[in-house]
Structure formats: structure tokens, C-alpha cells
């Protein structure tokens, strides 16, 4: 295969594509110094920003401007100048803390419960209607209820993360546990292995790849949801940062935040993919 003989080809294409896209962006965002429309609607001007409307400067920043902002954020990620001006590192930290808290609670609850459902057909039939109804609910729909009952906005965000992470883990764990090969369980039975030891030494490793598939889906959803949740509850976090920069009309900051959200999401996914590979087995 050519791609194998030229391992540098794919990265080269990636870099070329990036250069091309940045070039297009640069051209599209070029400040238009020539035309000043005299008949500009003042209301429209107010809406899209005076500078942009005046034509002196586009509201859309150039790649260079975004690069500069990104550099500024990366070199000083943890500054704190009051509630509405915190470093990107601090905001990401808040978001990650919420995601991890909600996610870990979900894992701690969904894995044992999934075990129960997977091992007992009775528990499966009893809980299935609840799961089927609760699973398709958008996690954000829980937000008002959470705010009303919990009252604390940070905790409500954690709850929303919990509720969106719990279903994929629960369903996958139950499925993984239920489909452990009969043969392996029979081996454990003929060796008089206790039910608890069977759960930990046979069922858990056998179902681990499926459980981790669920955990990987969940962390992805949780990271998607936290941005929206923080836009709603406000205060801190990367979602709030994006919303706040929208109010400041700092498109460059928004683009920087979008990039960072993507990179962090990728890092989380990579971590779970690594974990999944560590517990996978070939038959």
C-alpha cells in the first residue's frame, strides 16, 4: 500500500489542507478598507458591531488575530481578574471538574446496576420501562427541575452531566453482562467459584470491553452537554466563557474556546480509547 510506504503523506496532506483553509479564512476576513456604505442602516450597524459596520474592520477576526489570542491564553491560562474575566485554564478546569464529578457518580451507579440488570432477567424486565422512557430525554430538560430542587447551579450542572452519562453506561453494562459466554460461567461453576469471585474474575473482564464502549460514549456526551449546561447556569466554566465572549462580541475568543473544547474533548476520548484497548481481548 502506498500509504504504508510513504508514512509522511497523510500528515503532509493534513498540513496542506490546514494551510488552505487558513488562507481562505484570511482572505474572507480581510478588512475592507475601500468601501464605506453611506446608506447603512444604523440599527443594523448597531447589531453587528460598529467597527464591522463601518467597514474599517471585519467582526470576523483573521487567523493571525485568533492565533495571537490563542497564544495569549496559552501563555497565561490561570489569571483571575474578577468574575467575568478568568483565564481559559481556570474555566476549562471548572468544566472538567463538573464533568468528572457527574461522570464518576454515573459510573459508580450505572456499572453495579447494569450488572444487576444483566444478571437477573427479573430486574431487567422490571427496570426496562424506566430506562426506555428516561433514556431519550434531553439532559438539559432536567435543568430547571435540578435548579429548583438542588438550588445550587454548580451542583445542578453536575446532576445534568450525571443524568446524561448514566444511560449509555447502564445499557452497555447490562448488555455486556448478559452476553457473557455461557461456557465461561460454566467453567466457574464446575470450579466452585463463588458468585462474587465469578462477578469480578469472569463477568467483569468478559464484559469490560462493552462497559468501556458505554463509558466512552458517555464521556463524549458529557463533554457536549457541559458547554450547553454552563451557558444556562452561568458563573464559571468553558460554556459560560463562550457565552460571555459572545456578549462581549469577541469572536476571536470564541474561536479560541471552540478550539480548546475540541482538543479537550479529543483528549478525553483518547484516554477512554486507551483504557478500552487495555481491557479488550481477542477470542
Amino acid at each position, binding site marked *: 500500500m502506498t500509504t504504508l510506504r510513504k508514512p509522511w503523506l497523510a500528515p503532509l496532506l493534513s498540513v496542506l489542507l490546514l494551510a488552505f483553509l487558513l488562507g481562505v479564512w484570511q482572505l474572507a476576513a480581510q478588512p475592507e478598507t475601500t468601501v464605506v456604505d453611506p446608506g447603512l442602516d444604523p440599527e443594523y450597524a448597531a447589531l453587528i458591531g460598529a467597527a464591522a459596520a463601518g467597514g474599517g474592520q471585519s467582526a470576523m477576526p483573521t487567523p493571525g488575530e485568533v492565533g495571537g489570542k490563542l497564544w495569549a491564553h496559552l501563555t497565561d491560562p490561570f489569571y483571575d481578574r474578577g468574575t467575568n474575566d478568568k483565564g481559559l485554564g481556570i474555566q476549562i478546569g471548572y468544566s472538567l471538574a463538573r464533568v468528572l464529578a457527574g461522570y464518576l457518580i454515573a459510573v459508580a451507579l450505572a456499572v453495579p446496576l447494569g450488572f444487576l440488570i444483566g444478571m437477573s432477567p427479573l430486574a431487567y424486565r422490571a427496570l426496562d420501562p424506566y430506562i426506555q422512557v428516561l433514556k431519550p430525554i434531553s439532559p438539559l430538560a432536567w435543568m430547571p427541575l435540578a435548579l429548583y430542587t438542588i438550588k445550587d447551579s454548580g451542583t445542578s450542572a453536575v446532576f445534568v452531566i450525571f443524568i446524561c452519562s448514566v444511560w449509555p453506561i447502564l445499557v452497555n453494562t447490562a448488555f455486556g453482562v448478559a452476553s457473557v*459466554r455461557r*461456557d*465461561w460461567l*460454566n*467453567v466457574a*461453576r*464446575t*470450579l*466452585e*467459584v463463588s458468585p462474587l469471585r465469578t462477578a469480578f*474474575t*469472569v463477568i467483569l*473482564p*468478559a464484559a*469490560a470491553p462493552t462497559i468501556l464502549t458505554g463509558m466512552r460514549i458517555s464521556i463524549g456526551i458529557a463533554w457536549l452537554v457541559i458547554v450547553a449546561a454552563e451557558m444556562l447556569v452561568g458563573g464559571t466554566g468553558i460554556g459560560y466563557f463562550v457565552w460571555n465572549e459572545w456578549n462581549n462580541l469577541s469572536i476571536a475568543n470564541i474561536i479560541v474556546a471552540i478550539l480548546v473544547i475540541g482538543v479537550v474533548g479529543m483528549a478525553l476520548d483518547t484516554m477512554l480509547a486507551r483504557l478500552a484497548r487495555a*481491557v479488550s*481481548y*481477542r*477470542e
Partner: protein
Amino acid sequence: MAFLHIEALAKRFPQADAPVFEHLNFSIERGEFVCILGHSGCGKTTVLNILSGLDEASAGTVVMDGREVRGPALDRGVVFQSHALMPWLSALKNVEFGVRSRWPEWSRREVEAHSIKTLEMVGLAHALHKKPHELSGGMKQRVGIARAFAIQPKMLLLDEPFGALDALTRGTIQDELMQIVAATQQTVFMITHDVDESILLADRILLMSNGPRAQLAEIVEVALPRPRDRHTIHHDPRYYRIRNHLVDFLVNRSRAFAAPEAGHAPAVVNPGSDIPEPQAA
């Protein structure tokens, strides 16, 4: 009383009109190697599952060493048809899994040493740390045998252990099994489809008629002297007498076997007993 005693054993699966088999009566002596032969679907695996305790009989009793068999226990080692190794464990860990259950008081060192010793017995000293997917079919089956053997069961139960292997590998593992069993006086109950395999290994061969309502039709004694050698055993004129008898049963008589009444004991035959033992060359 015999070491293993089976009386009036029957199995009927729920929702089935007829029992798979019924009125099964037979005994196995300590140290005996017994094979069971019969057409596919006659209930051999079901019998073995009842002996291992993984399945329950609908009627009848199984008594081993003076105690009724109820549920699976460590005094019976099972080698599964599909090897049933845990794919996330190495060969050694698979064997250790059983050994640790058998002797929970043993230290990690003792467990490991005993497991390695058993794997060496089946010729796998070089593959201790390989995962099942890195092993050939024959090696996997050897690990399965080592796992069952390592717990030093009173009886070894094998469900067509060599069914999926090529003839050459099959022969090698048959030899290994024969050696281990001879050295340890192990009692063995083994299912097979292969007539030659059963003659090579067994002291007695149980012949089952076709299901449903399968019966134990006959018990064939294999009076060939031990140790037996795969390459020379067929020079013995009695070998073909036994072989013809078995094939004749499978081809002609297994289907038409009339169901006798409950207390029936299967006929015991000893084909070739009229031929004098050949003199050693």
C-alpha cells in the same frame, strides 16, 4: 458399589414431547476409562452435563464415590467441547484460575508452580504466557485438559475434546492423555464421535441408540492390552473385530434399537474374545 453409579437416568427438556434419553443404567469403576459413542443429538453432552452437575436429570440418580451428585463440584474436572478458555488470561492464568479455587489456602507461588507443572505435562512449557488467541487449536485444547487435570479431580469428564483437531494433532494429544491417565490412575468419562479414538483410549465403550428416547444399547469391552500404541494397535486381530462391531452398531443397529423397560441392563459384549492374544513378535 461401583465408583460411579447411574440408575434410571432420564432427561426431558421443558417443552419437548419426548425425553432425550431414558432408563440409563451403568457404572464406572475407579481408574476406568469409559467412552460414550452415539449419533449426533442422542444426548451424550446432556449425559455429561448431568454428571458434571451443570444440568439436572429429570429422573434417576447419579452417585459418585458414595455421594449423590448435586450440582457442579471440584471433584469432577470438565474439558469442554469448545475449550472454554478465558481469552483475557494467559494459558498459565487459565490453569491457575482452577488451581486457586481448588486450594484457596495455597500461596501464589504454590499455585503457580503446580499450574506450570501441569502445563508441562501436556507439553506447553514454552507457551505459558501466551493468550488463547496466540495458541493453535490443539494447544488450546491442551490448556483445557491441563485446567481440568490440575485440580486433581476424582473423575475427568471430556466432551469430544479432539473433535475440532486435525488427525496429526489429535494423535499426539491422544498419546499425551493416555500417558497422563495411566500415570495417575485417573477415572475418565469421555464423549467421542471417533470409533478408532474410542478403541485406542477406552476400557469400555457405551453405545447409545438414537434419540429421542435414546437408550444405552450395549457396553463393549475393549480387552486390548495396555500400554496401547496408535501405530501398532491395528495389527491386533481383535482390533478389527471391535471396530466392525462398533461401526455395525452405528450404521445398522443404533436406529432400530427397541426401547426396553425401565430396569434393563445393557448387554455387555466382548468382540474378538475368542481370538487368542497375539504373541509378541
